């Protein structure tokens, strides 16, 4: 068997072993989660509220709304009087058939956008919602351009060799030491 073939075969064996180890890990993970078997219920305590599903719906909604009398808490978590009242109000609105959006509009009409923890997409929040993507793209773009330019500069510098670049020599020396000590990290 010639070198490339043997290399490929060894490589395949290597990858196979890694895959096996990894599959074992996945199996263990699955076994652990399977160990969590379905529950058994005896005399089940009633969930709070007339309609538990509606209650959960209300709490889900309340988790995205801000308690106005608190330092920084959701309507779902807070025990402030206004939070209790507003949760009740939301319960009633949902019972009347209002949608999530309508409930939010109800609160925004009275308290402004401040009450929403998910800022609405408006002209004054465009920067907020698109900012991160813009920053990322600009950053990656800048990185790309800088790397390209850097390569060009290094290439032109090589054709004009620098005299006694002491720091570069020292770095090279340290790097060689590194390789000696076996550190690829």
């Amino acid at each position: 068997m010639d070198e490339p073939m043997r290399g490929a075969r060894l490589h395949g064996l290597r990858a196979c072993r890694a895959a096996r180890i990894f599959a074992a890990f996945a199996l263990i993970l699955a076994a652990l989660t399977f160990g969590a078997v379905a529950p058994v219920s005896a005399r089940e305590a009633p969930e709070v509220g007339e309609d538990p599903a509606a209650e959960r719906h209300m709490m889900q909604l309340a988790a995205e709304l801000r308690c106005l009398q608190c330092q920084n808490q959701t309507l779902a978590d807070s025990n402030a009087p206004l939070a209790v009242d507003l949760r009740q109000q939301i319960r009633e609105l949902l019972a009347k058939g209002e949608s999530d959006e309508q409930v939010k509009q109800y609160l925004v009409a009275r308290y402004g956008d401040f009450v929403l923890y998910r800022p609405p997409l408006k002209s004054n929040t465009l920067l907020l919602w698109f900012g991160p993507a813009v920053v990322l793209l600009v950053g990656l773009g800048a990185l790309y351009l800088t790397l390209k330019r850097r390569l060009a500069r290094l290439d032109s510098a090589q054709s004009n060799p620098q005299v006694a670049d002491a720091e570069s020599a020292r770095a090279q020396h340290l790097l060689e030491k590194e390789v000696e000590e076996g550190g690829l990290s």
Partner: protein
Amino acid sequence: MSPLFKSLRFLLPLFIFFAIAGFLLKGLWLDPREIPSPLIDKPAPEFRLQSLEDPARQIDRKDMLGKVWLLNAWASWCVACREEHPVLVEFARSSAIPIVGLNYKDTRVDGMRWLAQFGNPYVTSLFDEAGRVGIDFGVYAVPETFLIDKQGVVRFKQIGPVTPELLHEKILPLIQRLNA
């Protein structure tokens, strides 16, 4: 790349920092928990409540149309309300502008007793036991005061106690303009 741009590049972090610092400086005098009212320049919400003094009497939004008036949310359990109350009592004495109280999440007994003790500047107080009308007006921290014009549109909201300075500098001039 032009030499100017090259050196400017390195100044960018500094510029960004100064911009942030500017906002932070401004922020020192802002209150992050003060919520401006979305009701300004919008019609006051509909309401219909019993009067605190007389359960048989009902007041609703229509009753207040045609005049400029103040709505003051208060409660017997509210400590800051005691602070502003003398200012309101004085104002009620010296001015023709009616002040209507909104007794927020209180009991009749406590409310009446409080008024007896500290004075009653209100033409009447609306008895909002459940706090629903309060919610409709966007009340979140008593005392709060609204200035409503002849067409029933909210023109100004004060969160926190009314001070004499506030009366002179903001509320009275606005009342004059609205009455003109």
